[in-house]
């Protein structure tokens, strides 16, 4: 299929369904031949775990043990093959052989799984435990073990649920339990789960809203002070005009800022407290550093800011100096605190 203009998914779908069709033709053809030993064939499509006999179990166990043994013995090589194929080739590993081995192992796993869950649902036994494990760990060795455990758990629970109810198919129940484990992991997994992500997003939104208000107040005060040498309170509309937020989030963030003692409220509006000015200064400085960084990203490529959570104020003095120089050039230095200090010393 590499040689046509068809996309991979078309090729897979085509091969899959056409070969399945051929399989069905052969199946129906064999069914009317006058030979024995054919009645179990359509059970492979859905699997019939309950109909397995001890020789089946023995074969499955032996194949499973061989597969696990291969994975353990060749773990390093397979790991390299998966993550950096070119490098593996470079240090002289037989990547084609290893890849073939991997494919053969997948086929072997599918074949022994057929009797339990059947052709169609085998797909999910290959995928679900693995991505479930992926949510809990970043290490391949842990992932392999975890995935095995998840697979075993879903097998056991599926069987236990289906056993007491007559007519319940075991294979689909195993698949449903595997998927359930995946969905649960998707939601509650630490670090990657949806809940923790949502919480982080909410926290980030809250923080951003607060910082926006602080910076807006700071900038308003800065401008006003530069013109009139006095501080003043600003109505909410002025703050909103600078960096619009939804009304609800605006109120909530302001309340939070009041509670932290950064902002005070009067009848006319809001103003920064002394500690609020300090905080707002830092926020404004950081955001303006960010602006400089974005404008001159090439010059600061060594900083890897995305890894440091965009916290410019924790950078070494020297780097901050470079950013400061740029700010000066663009006349964007936050100056309110300085002006206030000068005002105080001159009076």
């Amino acid at each position, binding site marked *: 299929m590499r040689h*046509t*203009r*068809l*996309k991979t998914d078309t090729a897979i779908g*085509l091969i899959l369904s056409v070969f*399945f*069709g051929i399989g069905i033709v*052969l199946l129906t053809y064999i069914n009317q031949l006058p030979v024995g030993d054919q009645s179990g064939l359509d059970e492979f499509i859905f699997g019939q775990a309950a109909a397995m006999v001890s020789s089946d179990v023995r074969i499955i166990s032996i194949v499973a043990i061989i597969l696990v043994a291969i994975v353990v013995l060749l773990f390093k090589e397979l790991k390299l093959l998966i993550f950096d194929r070119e490098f593996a080739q470079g240090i002289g590993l037989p990547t084609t052989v290893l890849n073939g081995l991997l494919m053969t192992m997948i086929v072997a796993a599918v074949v022994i799984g057929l009797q339990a869950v059947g052709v169609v649902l085998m797909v999910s036994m290959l*995928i679900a435990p693995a991505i479930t494990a992926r949510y809990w760990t970043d290490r391949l060795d842990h992932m392999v073990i975890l995935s095995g455990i998840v697979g075993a758990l879903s097998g056991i629970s599926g069987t236990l649920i289906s056993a007491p109810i007559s007519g319940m198919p075991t294979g689909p*129940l195993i698949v449903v339990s595997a998927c359930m484990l995946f969905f649960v992991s998707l939601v509650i997994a630490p670090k990657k789960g949806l809940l923790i992500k949502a919480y982080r997003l909410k926290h980030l939104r809250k923080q951003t809203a607060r910082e926006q208000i602080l910076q807006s107040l700071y900038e308003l005060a800065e401008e006003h002070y530069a013109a009139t040498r006095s501080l003043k309170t600003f109505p909410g509309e002025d703050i909103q005009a600078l960096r619009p937020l939804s009304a609800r989030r605006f109120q909530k963030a302001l309340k939070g800022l009041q509670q932290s003692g950064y902002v005070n409220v009067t009848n006319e509006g809001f103003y920064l407290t002394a500690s609020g000015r300090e905080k707002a200064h830092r926020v404004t400085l950081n955001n303006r550093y960010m602006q400089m960084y974005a404008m001159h990203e090439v010059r600061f490529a060594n900083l890897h800011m995305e890894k440091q959570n965009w916290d410019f104020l924790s950078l070494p003095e020297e780097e901050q100096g470079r950013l400061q120089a740029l700010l000066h050039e663009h006349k964007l230095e936050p100056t309110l605190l300085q002006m206030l200090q000068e005002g105080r010393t001159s009076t």
Partner: protein
Amino acid sequence: MTDYTFWILLTASLVGITCGIIGVLLILRKLAMVSDAISHTVLLGIISAFLITQSLDGWTMFIGAAIVGVLTTVFIQMLNSAGVQSDASIGIVFTFLFAIGVILVSMFARNVHIDVEHTIMGEIAFIPWETVNWFGIEAPQAVWMLSIVLVIDVILLLFFYKEFKLSTFDPELAAALGLPVGLLHYLLMGMTSITAVASFDAVGAILVVAMLIAPGATAYLLTERFSMMFVLSATFGVIAAISGYYMAAWLNASIAGMMATMAGVLFLLAFIFSPTHGMIAKALSQKHIRTFDADT
């Protein structure tokens, strides 16, 4: 030709045309695996519709299948945006929904005519016996359903032809021009679902994928024109259906399976002999380049 054969051939040809037309869009939009997923999950739609309404009426099943089909794509999209790779999310969603469908079938609907094997292979041989009389014409229910779906598909396709064309080949431009790209996507998914459910009786869940993908892929190797692809794909669908029926009758094997096989054979022929993209043509042009290089 007896009446019985005629109805089977008509049903099979309708499946070929309908699936062929939809398949073109699926292939060009790289949705072949999604169609595989949908064709499985319509089982859940059919059985849920049956459990809710307690009837085997074609229309409720239609609606159920269309809803579940679109839901399938929505779920896949959701998992995708939650950070799961697209192939893994397709695999999880469709096996999950399919497994639930199978469980529901074996729990509640054992005695109804939806049985599991039927869903896999279809029962095209029984179709001529389930006739209904609409507008004074006595025809099998499957033929009615397929014709209606075909009409719906063709009308939607003609109506949104330009939109589909643009959003298939240049989705960014289409989005920039303000076309509802997402809506078109779900519209196509809905069309795929009703096509799958209408073809379900005839060819079953898995082989409908062959009828969806193979004729389109064959046409893709033979033409560069969007409109031509639909015509060729539908034609190949019909050829696969009719030749499949006669082959099956000759070997006394599964008709649906043979239709899929013939679709594959047609693809193989195009793969080898296509004048522009076939293996022979490519080998010849390569040889031509080599001799050309040697000459200069």
